[in-house]
């Protein structure tokens, strides 16, 4: 188990290093930061001084190492767009706003997706199963931005039940979290359904039924526990996606979280903020993958014992 964890931690670190190189290279290769930093009428000497101040006159490899070293301390430098703030503090300010929305969306995803997936497997081919399949198909196919606008049109503009955008009272979180949850509900529902169908068909579940255990107990105890393992991987991914800020949804609803910040920063070429955000998001994905892998190994002995589960 320890060996398994160590291997996965090393893999995660290697991935993050690769991500940091890509992020750094993209920010540098797509243009000289001086073009953005320096006023148009600046003389060459002043430009050189500015370059020296920001460390832009050093070789690229050196700049990368400095960037990485500072990043490890959580220091991404001052934001280009908001000069009195650092990239880190800009993000720290906006993150709770996204977390709040993401959390509601995540709760909604789990509360709807999991029971619906289990029930549709248990009552296969019933009307409930068909409805659930329809929901899953819709959620996987509908463009988020369009669903958001349509919901605003119906519930905010025509019915006036909720505000159209921004943060105004608790009702303003309903539509964006619903839109964000749609895809997750669809995916989680499908995964739970197929995984539960697998376990419900196994010999030991049949045996549990044969020896006279109540159906309820067999479903929720014997079948659900192993059946919940495969969807776990996806759950990790969806949780990160929801919690680290959904750019499209935040733009449509003017929700001032990190997703909207990413949009503003990229358009303003605020590279320190963009780099910090990109690394932060990747780190969240890597850490979540690690947690999921370890949990997976804990729950499924075959992984822990080194047998490869064909995934």
């Amino acid at each position, binding site marked *: 188990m320890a060996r398994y964890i160590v291997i996965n931690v090393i*893999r995660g670190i*290697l*991935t*993050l290093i*690769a*991500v940091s190189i*890509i*992020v750094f290279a*993209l*920010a540098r290769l*797509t*243009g000289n930061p001086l073009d953005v930093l320096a006023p148009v009428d600046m003389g060459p000497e002043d430009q050189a001084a500015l370059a020296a101040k920001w460390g832009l006159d050093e070789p690229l490899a050196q700049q990368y190492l400095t960037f990485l070293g500072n990043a490890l301390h959580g220091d991404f430098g001052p934001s280009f767009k908001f000069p009195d703030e650092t990239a880190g503090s800009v993000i720290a300010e906006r993150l709770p706003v996204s977390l709040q929305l993401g959390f509601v969306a995540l709760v909604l995803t789990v509360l709807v997706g999991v029971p619906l997936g289990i029930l549709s497997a248990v009552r296969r081919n019933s009307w409930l199963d068909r409805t659930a399949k329809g929901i899953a*198909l*819709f959620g996987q*196919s*509908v*463009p*988020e*931005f*369009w669903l958001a*606008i*349509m919901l*605003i*049109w119906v519930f905010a503009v025509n019915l006036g039940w909720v505000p159209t955008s921004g943060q105004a009272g608790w009702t303003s979180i309903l539509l964006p979290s619903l839109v964000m949850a749609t895809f997750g509900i669809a995916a989680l529902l*499908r*995964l739970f359904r*197929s995984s539960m*169908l*697998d376990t419900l*068909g*196994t*010999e*030991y579940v049949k045996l549990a039924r044969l020896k006279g255990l109540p159906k309820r107990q067999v479903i929720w105890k*014997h079948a659900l*526990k*192993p059946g919940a*393992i*495969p969807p776990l991987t996806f759950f990790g991914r969806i949780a990160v996606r929801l919690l*680290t800020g959904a*750019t*499209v949804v935040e733009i449509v609803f003017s929700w001032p979280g990190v997703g909207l910040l*990413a*949009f503003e920063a*990229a*358009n303003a*070429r605020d*590279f320190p903020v*963009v780099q910090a*955000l*990109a690394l932060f*998001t*990747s780190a969240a*994905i890597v850490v979540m*993958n690690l947690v999921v892998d370890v949990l997976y190994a804990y*729950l*499924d*002995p*075959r992984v822990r014992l080194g047998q490869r589960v*064909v*995934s």
Partner: protein
Amino acid sequence: MRRPRTAPPPPDAGLSELDAGSSRDAPAGPAARAPRWPRPGLRRLVRRWPWLPILIILFVLVIPALFAPLLSPYDPLRGTLADRLLPPAWLDGGTWSHPLGTDKQGRDILTRVIYGARISLIVSSAAILIGAVLGSTLGLLAGYFGGAVDRVVSWLVDTFMSLPIVLLALVVVAVIGPSFVTIITIISVTIWSSFARQVRGETLSVRESDYVARSRVAGASAARILLRHVLPNVTNTLIVLATLQVGVVILEESSLSFIGAGIPRPQPSWGVMVAEGRDQITTAWWLTFFPGLAILVVVLSLNLLGDWLRDFLDPKLRQQE
């Protein structure tokens, strides 16, 4: 709770009835009977064919994309200002010369939706072609050779799967500007990893098979084994994955275009159209509704077709995702 999950169950009843095997592997005995046509498996296949999704894909995506200029008399980029903001034909003030209405520059919405299909089809086929070729090549190599090759490819897959794509797309577009080439590159970069991962997994299991071992003993080169024995065995997986990815790519392209990081503005991408109509949702809902509906029905049909193909060609795949 520590009970291991047992091996995947046999394919369900509907599938075994369909009998994917018999329709593909015609009896190849020395005295092979003359093939009956239509073979029973094929007839059943045609009856089970998901007709509605296929028709929708043809009539909303493929045919408009191929014949856009023949289908509409209007220019998708230039409108008649006199006809601005006409509602759909069946509403008051609408006219059948603009069935789905017009936007504030007097451009015909139906025409723009038709030309939008062209953009969706071009972007998705190009991105999937690049992503599939790149991804399956790397997947084949990683799965077949294992060792260091596998480790490097797996590392790259891990890396690209943890990149925040929307953010990177925004940066690239903010700096070099939106264009077809940019968006196709960005999307290819995001989808190659799923092809690589899938093909690598399949290759790993094919590599262990007897026929690969025998052709290796017979002295076949790695290239020959990969092309003649492994690749044909992963083709079904590739077809299914590619079909499902068309929907994913169309959604991705329209989302990026919607936030201004995809197809540049005047072009009639479905995502661009939704973005343009967004501010007028209270007065002119048809600007946003129809292009979004086009995305929804096309992606939905592609998903249905992909699921059907997966059940038909590759029951193994159903375990995942």
